[in-house]
Every structure is written in C-alpha cells, then in structure tokens.
C-alpha cells in the first residue's frame, strides 16, 4: 500500500461525508437552527445572568450570549459526532459500511478518516454559526477565529470518536433515542457549556465534580480559550486523552474478531 492509496481513500471518505452533508439541506439547516434557538431564545432570558463575575479567558463583564457561544459550538460538534454515529449505524444497516470495511486499507485508518470527515462537517457548521452570531454582537477577536480551528479539530475528533464508540455498540437505528437521553443530554447539561463551574459549585459539589471531569466540558473550555487567543493546556491534554481512549475503544469495537460486533453477530 502506497501513501497515495491512503490519501485517495481518505479524500474519498471526507468528500463523501461533505457531499452528503451539503446535499441534505434540511440537515444543514437543522444543525444550525439548534444552536441558534439556544442563542436567540434561551440566552435572551438569561442575559444578565453572569453580570457579576469575571472568569478567564474573559477580561471584563460579558453577556450570557457571549458565554454560551463556545458551549453551543460544543453542542454543534456533540450532535454532529452523534449524527455521524447514527449514519454509521445506518450505513451498517444498508450495507455500505461493509463496502468500506472490506477495503484493503487498515481498519483504524478507515475509521480515523471517517472521523476526520465528520469533524470537517462540524467545523463547517461551527463557522457558519459563528458568522450568524457575529451579527448578533457575539464577537471574538478576529485572530481568535483562526486560533479556534485547531481546538475545533481536536474537540470534533474527540466527540466524533465518542459517537463512533457508541455506534459500535448500538445494534439498531431505533436505539439512537437512548443515546439522546443517556449521552447527549447528560453530557451537555452537566458541563460548562451553559453555566460556569463556580455557578455549578454553588448548587452541588457532586455536579461540580461531574461537570469538571466531563470531557465535553474540557472540549468546550479548550474552544472557549482558543476563541480568545489563549491556550488552555489542561483542557487540551484532557480532550486529547479522551480522544485516544474513545478512538482506541471504537477501533476495538469495530474489530470483527475481538470487538463487540462479533458478540452482537456482526454488522
């Protein structure tokens, strides 16, 4: 196998995912509407909720809209990661997954390419969302939009890997409702996406600890700092570690001889 083969396969997978996303206009709009509803409607009710404290990376008082924007970026990537996992279950049911997995290229490479493809889609969504938010006076320093990109790649991969891991254990498409209830909601609400840690600490020590060690919180914080041209080393390390763990388990899960697919009777 030459590098060119790898590259062509990766290109094919990413192009297919982007093409699929752009063709499904409803999906594109739905992916945008979700965070925008939160920004325009939910945040509007809490405008002054944070007017009393300054927390890094912010250097002055901010409106709630400004605070939850990185959280909503995380939300886009979380849903996208789960959506990719949903599409993988669908692919598996339709048989196109088999086509992909019988390719002579190593499975880990194919799965990582699939992850990258999902991340590319999520980044497209995030920047479109940020553009709309910009017109709503949620502005970060211009260079911040650039420094955000590496953070988006890492967090997109991590959340995608989580989705992939879940897709390796979900047998049927119908089970996706369970993912909503048991993964997306707890992860999103038990995080720093909607409220800062000190606010959570005020209400419950347990919630505070859960939110602090939630990989989604770390991904959101990594993006929050990056958007303001600051590097949060701890959040970066934590997100990267979560990516390695989720991806390894997902690769293991998709291995027919060792993984969960065998136990479930294959894809």
């Amino acid at each position: 196998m030459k590098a060119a083969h790898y590259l062509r396969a990766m290109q094919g997978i990413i192009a297919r995912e982007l093409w699929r996303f752009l063709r499904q206009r409803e999906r594109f709009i739905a992916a945008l509407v979700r965070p925008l509803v939160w920004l325009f409607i939910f945040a509007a009710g809490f405008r002054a909720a944070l007017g009393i404290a300054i927390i890094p990376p912010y250097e002055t008082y901010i409106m709630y809209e400004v605070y939850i924007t990185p959280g909503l970026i995380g939300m886009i990537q979380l849903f996208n990661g789960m959506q990719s996992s949903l599409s993988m279950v669908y692919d598996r049911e339709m048989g196109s997954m088999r086509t992909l997995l019988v390719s002579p290229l190593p499975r880990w490479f194919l799965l990582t390419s699939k992850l990258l493809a999902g991340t590319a889609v999520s980044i497209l969504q995030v920047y479109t969302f940020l553009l709309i938010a910009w017109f709503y006076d949620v502005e970060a320093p211009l260079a911040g939009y650039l420094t955000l990109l590496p953070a988006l790649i890492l967090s997109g991969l991590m959340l995608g890997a989580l989705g992939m891991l879940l897709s390796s254990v979900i047998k049927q498409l119908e089970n996706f409702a369970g993912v909503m209830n048991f993964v997306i909601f707890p992860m999103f609400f038990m995080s720093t996406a909607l409220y800062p840690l000190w606010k959570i600490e005020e209400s419950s020590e347990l919630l505070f600890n859960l939110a602090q060690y939630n990989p989604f919180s770390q991904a959101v914080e990594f993006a929050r700092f990056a958007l303001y041209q600051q590097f949060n080393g701890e959040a970066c390390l934590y997100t990267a570690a979560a990516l390695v763990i989720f991806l390894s388990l997902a690769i293991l899960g998709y291995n027919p001889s060792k993984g969960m697919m065998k136990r479930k009777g294959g894809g």
Partner: protein
Amino acid sequence: MKQAKKLLGAFVLYSFFSTSWADTVFITLEKDNALAIVDGKAGKLIKTVKLGQRPRGIMLSADGSKLYVAASDDDTIQVIDSNSYSIVGELPSGEDPETFDLSPDGTRLYVSNEDDDLVTVIDTVNQKVVKEIAVGVEPEGIATSPDGKWVVNSSETTNMIHWIDTESLDIVENTLVDQRPRAVKFTADSKQLWVTSEVGGVLSVLDAKTQQAVKKLTFKIRGVTAEQIQPVGIAIDQAGRWGYVALGPANRVAVIDAKKLEIVDYLLVGQRVWNLAFSPDQSRLYTTNGVSNDVSIINTENHKVLKSVAVGRYPWGVAVK
C-alpha cells in the same frame, strides 16, 4: 526608498513613544481611604496609597504635576504629588467636600459642600477661601466652562442648576431640571451643558446661552428596569463627537452621538458605574464601578469594553495622566 526608511524610522519612534507613555490612572477608593494607581494600557493595578478619610472627587492640576482629592470625612482637599504619590499639602475646602472643578487656568478650585449647601471658591495659589456661595439644598455636581465664563452647580434636592458668573461669583441664573441632578459637564466649545438626573433617569442638554434645555434623553435598556437606570458621571470628547454617561446600578455606560444627541449603544461594565475619565489621547475611557470594586477600560474607537481591573473597595473618582 529613502522615504520608506524615513517612514519606518518615524513609525519606530512613534511606537516607542506610544508604548512608553502609558496612561497612569488614579482612582479614589471611598471605603479603603486610599488612592489606587493603575497602568491603563496594561490594565494592571500598580500601587495603592493611603489617603484621608472617604476620598471621593479627584482632579489633576492644569500642569498635571499635582492631584487634588476631596477627603470628605476629613473636610479637606488633599494635594498629592502625581509622580511620587506623596501628600504635599491641603486646601481649606469647607465641610464634607465631595466634588469640585478647577478653573481652566488652574488658579481656582470650586467645591460643593453637600451638608452646608455651599459652593466654596478656593484660591489654589494662596491656598485660601475666596468666597462661599449659598446654593440650593445638597449641592452635588460642579463644572467650569472651558471659556472660563461659568461655574455651574447642581443641587440634588432643589433639582436646580445654578449658573455662577466667575467674575462676580454670584448666581445669575437657575435652571430647573429633572429629579436629583448629579453630574454636570460642559462641551469643549462651552456651548452646551450636559446634566444627569439620577432619579429622573434623564440626560438634559442645556444651551449655555439661554440656560434652557435643548434636548432630553431618556435611557432604556433591554432587561433592565427603569429604577436601575440612574445616570451619573458624564464624559464628552474634545472633538464633540461622542459623549458617555455612566448609568449607575444599570451597570452600563451609554454612548451618545454628541452631534445628533442620540443614544447609540450601551456598554456593559461593572456594578454601579459612577464616574468617567478619558485617557489624555481620549482613545480610552475609564469607569469607576463602586459595587464590583473595579475599573472598566473602554476603547473609544470601537466602543468595546477591553478589560475590568480590580482596584479596591468602593472606587469613586478617576483622573488620568
């Protein structure tokens, strides 16, 4: 090529000087009985110096070498060296001085004495009281016109602006304004006087010729009750382009188009924003936030709040060198 080199040289020189001349921001801390000194460009607290009791009003002398601070509970105006930060003298101010203003040439200081319903005129050279002028109940804001013609004083309870002629030192005219007038400020051309009414929630713009209101602006902020909007400190830029009004417990500074006399924006700052002061080049505006104990720094070019810096308890007045 030569020209390019010259330009580059000029740029290097400019950047050297523009970065080496940092704003020194002086803030009186009403509760800490101290003066906080902040590097305005870096947004960092440099030092805190002990002052008299309950320091409030603060101003730089005309040459910038001295600071005058009203130590309200010590019934005096303290004179501070603006370089060494040491107290070098005192001026007789009368009882409970709160706010004051200097004449354009710096030789006279006009102080409002809230408890005695007086405006005290002090000669800064001889350090003597020239005159005590009886005014309305609870005198508060005081301002001299840049052309040197007027001193105006607002009395909080009488809801009046008293126009004092600087030659005779007598009140020659009174203007009735909305409830609880606080700050007063002349435009740089001395043609207009801006007055904030704390309880009325209004900014009145008076014509200095007729002493009558030409416009009244009412503030409205989404999600903030009318009671919380209490206009206080005023700053108007030298060019007469922008004006700024601190809105107290609304935690906002209103940005006003000074030409059209229209409110264009509200900027979120710390809690109970009280007084305002420009940097010498007017590219930044500093606000004292009395309840959140910090100073917010506003970029006046794009009207964005850059930073809020913790300074100490109850920041009240601000002056910038």
